[in-house]
């Protein structure tokens, strides 16, 4: 589990802005509106596992990472910064190592 500090570092590390931008664009197109950076994707509890899978597969393909096992948590996908931190960590270019 990445600590909050590490997430913050990773979310501002090299390429983080690009990752965030692409995620915001994806979520905006998926929901037909502007996506607020800190909005909780799962707040309502109404999300389908199909959406979760679509999001996961999008992240994996878009950023060339594989998310497996205990990295596969709601918290890692809850907000754009959280996903960005996960991507940065899995790509090995964030502040936090594995």
């Amino acid at each position, binding site marked *: 589990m990445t600590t909050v500090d590490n997430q913050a570092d990773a979310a501002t590390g090299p390429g983080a802005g690009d990752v965030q931008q692409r995620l915001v664009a994806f979520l905006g197109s998926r929901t037909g509106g502007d996506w607020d950076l800190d909005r909780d994707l799962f707040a309502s509890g109404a999300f389908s596992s*199909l959406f979760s899978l679509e999001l996961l597969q999008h992240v994996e393909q878009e950023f060339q990472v594989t998310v497996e096992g205990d990295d596969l948590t709601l918290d890692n996908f809850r907000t754009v910064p959280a996903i960005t931190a996960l991507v940065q960590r899995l790509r090995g270019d964030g502040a936090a190592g594995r």
Partner: protein
Amino acid sequence: MAATETAETGTPTDAAETAVRPAVKCLVWDLDNTLWRGTLLEHDELVLRPGVLETLKALDERGILQSVASRNEYDDAWAKLESLGVADYFVLPHIGWGRKSDAVRAVAEQLNFAQNTLAFIDDQHTERAEVAYHLPDVRCYDAPEAAGLPDLPDFTPTVTSDARRRRAMYQEKFRREAAQSEFNGPDEDFLRTLDMRMSIARADEGDLARVEELTLRTSQMNATGVHYSDADLRALLTDPDHEVLITTVEDRFGSHGAVGVVLLERQPGRWRLKLLATSCRVVNFGIGTQLLRWTADQATRAGVHLEADFRRTDRNRIMEVAYRFAGFNSKPCACQEDGREAAADAPADVQRLHLVPQRQAAPTTLTVTGPVLWSGDGTGKPWA
């Protein structure tokens, strides 16, 4: 060319999953000289070929969907199907000038069915060869075989009360999706407009065929890929340590029928989720997520942990995501250290995912009722 070009579908996973290939879930028909005798473009007098109507009816009653892949003008061909009185039997017709393999692939994708559950019938061997080349898992049949299809094991699934309504349920689903595409708000707002009601109930003997069918048909939303037979399930119904729960869903467009199964075993300190399977018809609605949340809520109130059997198949990653996003993880817990290893009836390579459950708020997008698992009250109570 041999009369039968039935493509062999080697099951990609292990033999434990399915020793025989799965039953056909959708048959895609060519029209000219296959469904009807004659060629529409040549202004022939068209009549259904012998035995075709009987096959349409028989497969429909068994819950096997039927579609069309035909090279014709859409409006002309569909009008002819209507005048022959058979248009209602078909879902997602693909009538146009593209490749038949593209049509069959599109039908599979739109229905969310694996290609090895589709069949294709066409009098032209080149068309069958084209489909077989691009989609080797699709079973192909020649037109003269149409009348005999209902006699083949491939077209003999477990038939349930829901099966007879399956086509109607899919047609309702397509209307629902049309409503959704007209709706621009976030998904959850759309879901609320459906007036969806989910009922969870202890299965009785009359439900067993539907439960068995769900474990057979749900290759994506099935946590272990294990098939529980009628006899297996019957024994569990009367076992006080087991709960066999069946979920049905209705909305303003109609009933989705039985769409989910939960099989859990009460063990000291924990409930073991041996099976969670939900129909691909309802995957958009978060029904699997809500079933897991409801079960977690019940377990919290019972003061037990949850453990879930999960076995990766080549199609069920969505289930792993559902469990993981519900909070299940691979970290060991003291509740698992009671000397009970994975049960003897668990398949090999099964993972045991664990959750310390927490109270879950009832969803705002649908109403849910279910038995009170932790007090033994079997009547349906609102989730609150």
